[in-house]
């Protein structure tokens, strides 16, 4: 057995070699068993011959080894050669153990530590083989075919080296070695002649032999006890049956098939899949590892194994041989040898692959094979029967079922399952790609498409170069400016201004629509304008008259007021220094639109004075809604404040009330038919001028009233003086008007929102307690605190946000009145419940605005959506909008004019129902 194993090992190497070099390795098998003595003799001879050579030997071996490498390198161009030399080294390495009967111990005793004779031999032969392929092959071949052509052999070992000058130096250096070689070779020849079956060496030496099929002897001579058919791998009971078998159909068929397969090269092998496995022993090809395993377990295989064991034939390991079609093609010629070998020698070599070079590859692959671990065990459900035995399996990943545990195992290793596993569980799982024809086609098609697309893009880029430049410019320069960029970007030629304001939102449109609705009509404005203008002129005229009348008296009283310039400073006192600035500003502003007659009524009550006289009525100014421009539709009441030099008294008021109608008639144009009615309101400290539609309230006040009431000064004319609070209110109104014009009016959207809020306060009881001035403060504060300009919609929402956030609740900061020196809360007098209600209302409004129900806040019909003219980026939206528009229109077209929120809701529901 030991021998057999060794033999096998050796043969294995030999067969590989034989296969590679297309030699008929057959003869060697049995011959070897009987050969050891002869081989030993050969070696002995060699050693004997090498006594003088020993010294030279090592060097020679070294050089030759080097040479072999050099040669291999030189021949690297031909894979065949390279592989061969590689192989030889391998074979040589295997040699010592492979041939224990050979005198290895003897070699050891010769104390050549680096004993490499076998290797040397191998190399020698290897070179020979390699060379053979390069052209010297016939020579070598004849050496070893000496059995048939012995005559030619003696000279050839010498000529062969000569044929290769590169080698000669080395060879010459150890002619003794060559001699030994020659001796050995002759011994072999002799041995072969006597043994008739060849030897291991012969087998080994098959290197360059162009083996021929006819050289393959039948195994009959060996088959003494057992009648074994190599082709069919069966044993026959006796010679008779064996003969019959050989003549039988089956055998012939097999033989023919083997020949055809050999002749046809790899054709047969190629047919099988990439991963086909082959049982060398039985010459059976299996499609997969599992099928192979099944085969090995099978009775047929076991029989063959038994037989081979009995015969003492080599039994290849159960390791399957892989058939790799791609590799088969490499070795066209060797195929022949494979076929020819037919016998046992093919056992290890049926793949007939140029083993040496591929050895490594193959190893890798062989390692790969077991690496295909079953995956996704967790996803296989076992369906158990009542007895708890697994009946079937269900793979959840692939959604398939198996009844057999083996099938389950196979499935788990299968490509489909692994692909699913990769897809669904472990994305980095390696699944070998099957380069099927179909996939290749797909890949090609994809590449093609990519190419086409690239080209297309290239062309289009060229085409759009101009546009791209533009884009690059805008995107590079101010992409961060948001809408600006967009307008320019897509609005080429659309006439967008450089300002690039965002298009107005639905909220904006609602607010603006509401604003347009509450804004007073032109006629109303004109009426008010005329009435106010007349009143102012009349007051001026009155003031003139009073001044003329009272000058002497007053001069003594207040000498300080001499000039007109001083007048401006004086009436307001120190606190009004700020107001003063505003006063002059506002006064002129007010005067100008008041009337074109240069009276400058508001601005300069004293203007017409002309002289240094001190007049009781120093000036008049519009305050309140009129001054702030907050008049709404339906507003009829406007206020003027007349500044008096001294504390305004009831007497003065009465006089004004008495004289004013006369002056009004005087200033009124002759063709104007307005009839003014003047009414005294002593409790208010004012007179009311009314022309039937417009009421102008003229309050008398004086800056002196603000001065601390102390001393007898006040008491002096206490009874006669107008109510102090009213006078202060009038003064405050003056300041508020100035503040408004200076601060609030300049804020974007502020006036609009204040008008809207005024409307709100007018409409909604919860909001009424919010006094107008506080509301103005609030709105302007909210606008001011916004980081940028707000659109009307945003501004209204922000006001609601502020109120909803509890700005006017108790813990809030309050609204500081900027027109007071002290910290005064403009809302200080608002009761808690009112604050609460107002806040709650604002909170509700805020959410309504947020959810696009701003129309409810504004108490108006929802506006139909507009089509945005702002460009292509809203195309889908635009279309949708127009649809809703249509709906909206039909709904409105029903002729229902819906006023209240509730009704609007109802109609909405109706319209929804209709749709």
């Amino acid at each position, binding site marked *: 057995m030991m021998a057999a194993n060794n033999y096998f090992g050796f043969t294995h190497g030999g067969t590989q070699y034989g296969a590679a070099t297309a030699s008929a390795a057959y003869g060697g098998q049995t011959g070897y068993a009987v050969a050891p003595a002869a081989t030993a003799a050969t070696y002995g001879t060699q050693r004997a011959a090498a006594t003088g050579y020993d010294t030279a030997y090592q060097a020679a071996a070294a050089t030759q080894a080097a040479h072999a490498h050099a040669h291999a390198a030189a021949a690297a161009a031909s894979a065949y050669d390279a592989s061969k030399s590689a192989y030889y080294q391998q074979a040589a390495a295997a040699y010592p153990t492979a041939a224990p009967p050979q005198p290895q111990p003897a070699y050891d005793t010769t104390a050549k530590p680096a004993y490499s004779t076998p290797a040397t031999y191998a190399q020698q032969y290897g070179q020979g083989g390699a060379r053979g392929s390069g052209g010297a092959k016939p020579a070598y071949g004849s050496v070893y075919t000496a059995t048939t052509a012995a005559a030619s052999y003696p000279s050839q070992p010498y000529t062969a080296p000569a044929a290769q000058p590169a080698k000669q130096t080395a060879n010459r250096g150890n002619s003794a070695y060559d001699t030994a070689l020659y001796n050995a070779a002759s011994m072999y020849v002799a041995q072969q002649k006597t043994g008739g079956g060849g030897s291991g060496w012969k087998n080994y030496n098959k290197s360059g032999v162009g083996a021929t099929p006819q050289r393959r002897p039948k195994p009959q001579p060996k088959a003494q006890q057992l009648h074994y058919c190599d082709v069919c791998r069966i044993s026959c009971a006796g010679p008779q049956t064996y003969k019959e078998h050989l003549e039988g159909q089956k055998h012939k068929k097999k033989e023919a098939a083997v020949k055809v397969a050999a002749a046809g090269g790899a054709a047969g092998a190629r047919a099988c899949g990439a991963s086909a496995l082959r049982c060398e022993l039985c010459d059976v090809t299996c499609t997969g590892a599992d099928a192979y395993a099944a085969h090995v377990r099978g009775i047929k295989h076991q029989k063959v194994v038994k037989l081979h064991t009995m015969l003492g034939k080599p039994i290849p390991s159960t390791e399957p041989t892989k058939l790799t079609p791609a590799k088969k093609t490499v070795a066209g010629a060797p195929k022949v040898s494979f076929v020819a070998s037919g016998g046992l020698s093919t056992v290890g070599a049926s793949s007939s692959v140029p083993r040496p070079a591929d050895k490594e590859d193959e190893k890798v692959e062989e390692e790969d094979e077991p690496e295909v671990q079953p995956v996704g065990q967790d996803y296989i459900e076992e369906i158990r029967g009542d007895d708890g035995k697994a009946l079937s399996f269900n793979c959840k990943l692939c959604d398939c079922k198996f009844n057999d545990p083996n099938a389950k195992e196979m499935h788990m290793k299968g490509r489909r399952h692994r692909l699913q596993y990769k897809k669904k569980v472990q994305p980095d799982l390696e699944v070998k790609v099957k380069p099927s024809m179909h996939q290749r086609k797909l890949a090609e098609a994809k590449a093609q498409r990519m190419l086409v697309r690239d080209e297309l893009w290239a062309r289009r*880029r060229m085409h759009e170069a101009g546009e791209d430049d533009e884009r690059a410019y805008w995107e590079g320069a101010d992409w961060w400016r948001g809408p600006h960029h967009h307008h320019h970007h897509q609005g080429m030629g659309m006439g967008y201004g450089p300002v690039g304001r965002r298009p107005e939102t639905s909220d904006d449109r609602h607010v603006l629509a509401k604003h347009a609705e509450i804004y007073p009509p032109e006629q109303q404005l004109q009426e008010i304008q005329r009435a106010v203008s007349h009143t102012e002129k009349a007051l001026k005229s009155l003031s003139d008259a009073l001044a003329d009348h009272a000058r002497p008296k007053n001069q003594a009283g207040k000498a300080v007021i001499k000039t007109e310039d001083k007048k401006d400073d004086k009436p307001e006192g120190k606190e009004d220094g700020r107001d003063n600035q505003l006063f002059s500003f506002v006064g002129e502003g007010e005067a100008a639109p008041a009337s074109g007659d240069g009276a400058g009524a508001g601005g300069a009550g004293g203007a017409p004075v002309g002289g240094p006289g001190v007049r009781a009525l120093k000036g008049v100014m519009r305050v309140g809604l009129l001054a702030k421009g907050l008049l709404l539709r339906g507003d009829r009441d406007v206020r003027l404040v007349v500044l008096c030099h001294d504390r305004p008294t009831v007497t003065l008021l009465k006089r004004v009330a008495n004289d004013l109608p006369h002056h009004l008639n005087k200033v009124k144009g002759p063709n104007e038919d307005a009839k003014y009615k003047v009414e005294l309101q002593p409790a208010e400290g004012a007179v009311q001028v009314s022309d039937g539609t417009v009421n102008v309230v003229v309050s008398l006040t004086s800056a002196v009233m603000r001065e601390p009431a102390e001393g007898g000064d006040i008491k002096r004319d206490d009874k006669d003086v107008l109510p102090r609070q009213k006078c202060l209110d009038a003064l405050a109104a003056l300041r508020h008007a100035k503040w408004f014009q200076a601060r609030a009016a300049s804020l974007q959207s502020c006036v609009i929102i204040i008008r809207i809020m005024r409307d709100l306060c007018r409409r909604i009881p919860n909001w009424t307690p919010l006094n107008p001035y506080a509301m103005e403060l609030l709105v302007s504060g909210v606008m001011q605190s916004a980081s940028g300009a707000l659109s009307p919609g945003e501004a209204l929402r922000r006001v609601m946000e502020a109120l909803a956030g509890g700005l006017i609740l108790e813990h809030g900061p309050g609204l500081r009145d900027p027109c007071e020196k002290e910290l005064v809360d403009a809302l200080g007098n608002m009761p808690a419940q009112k604050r609460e209600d107002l806040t709650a209302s604002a909170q509700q409004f805020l959410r309504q605005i947020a959810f696009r129900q701003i129309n409810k806040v504004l108490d108006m019909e929802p506006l139909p959506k507009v089509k945005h003219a702002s460009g292509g980026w809203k195309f889908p939206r635009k279309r949708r909008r127009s649809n809703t528009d249509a709906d909206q229109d039909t709904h409105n077209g029903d002729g229902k004019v819906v006023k209240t929120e509730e009704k609007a809701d109802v109609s909405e529901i109706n319209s929804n129902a209709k749709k």
Partner: protein
Amino acid sequence: MVRGAGRGGRGIPGRGGMGRPPFSRPRVLMLRPPFDLILAEPAFPRCKPAPDDAALTQALLKRHAELCPTPTEQSAVLSIVTKLQTVLDNLVVAPGDFAACQLEEVRQVGSYKKGTMMAGKNVADIVVIMKTLPTKEAVEGLSNKVNEELNKLMRAEGLGNVSSTCHERGFTVTAATAAVRVLVTTLHQNLRKLEPEVHLDYKVISSHLAAIRHSRWFEENAHHSSIKVLIRLLRDMCARHSGLEPLTPWMIDLLAHHCIMNNPARQALPINVAFRRSLSLLAGGLFLPGCAGLPDPCEAAHSRAHTALDLAAQDHAAATAQTLLRVVARGGHRYVLGLQAFEGGKDISTEITVWDGVVVSPLAPAYHDSPEPMDTEDKDDDGIQDGVAA
């Protein structure tokens, strides 16, 4: 936009590959931050004495003390989290024969990591990033494995057993006094491979990834203890009022951070001011559509934290906060904070209450499920665009 600029500038041929024709960019919404009294202070100088907030401050601190987990609780959580982390780390480093899934990374997230745990809620969160795709089986396998390993550890220390139950976010390991939610997610590049019927839900998976980002952001930006105090108070408040319940912990984190830190001085505000401010911001529509809200620092540019809420929830949350704001303004903070149960546990935000003769009433919702199409349509658009607006 940035991406666009790059494209325009360098002319990368991938323009078509992004599948977006040049002109169909999403509309840029210039959303405005809401009115914020703290930031608007220059426009509204205080003209009356500041209210005496000592009572509120005291109440806030008292409530916070109640909400803080006790040392026992903390150590219980710590113990199980440490063990679980060990087990999971071992699985990351040496999976051995564990093949149900491959783990990439394990991270602690959530309130435990942020230090904002609440008393009585001893649930820590750990996110497990799987290298493999998170199938339900993988989660189950991991759960079993973790359970087994953890029990070994527990036995070694002579502690009670743990049990582990799977759910749609991963699984929860429950010990005697504490629990850990193991939230399963996967690598970014695997996200698009998820299939609804095989794997965990995409939204869940990505929310777990977001949780990791949130923890990191929090660690870097919101470590001030005032923020943590406010987070506890707000989370407690939100949990007790139905309208505020939909607010996610992440929104609350952002809100608390904003309220404490975002002021002109960049110094942490006192807790009472910040608490009022948070209510006031919510009431002022911070989380309403059309408002810039709070930008989410952990998402792509211009995404807002509150868009995760649906419109009805946004409306409801705002309305609740508005009512609570007015209740607190009337001195009802003890009820709002939960120091005192309101009429046997009723939700004060839905009841009409009277404070010193002032009636505070709850508000009706403004959002209707099916108002006229014009309204919702626009709103929905807004909601979507917020997310993608570049």
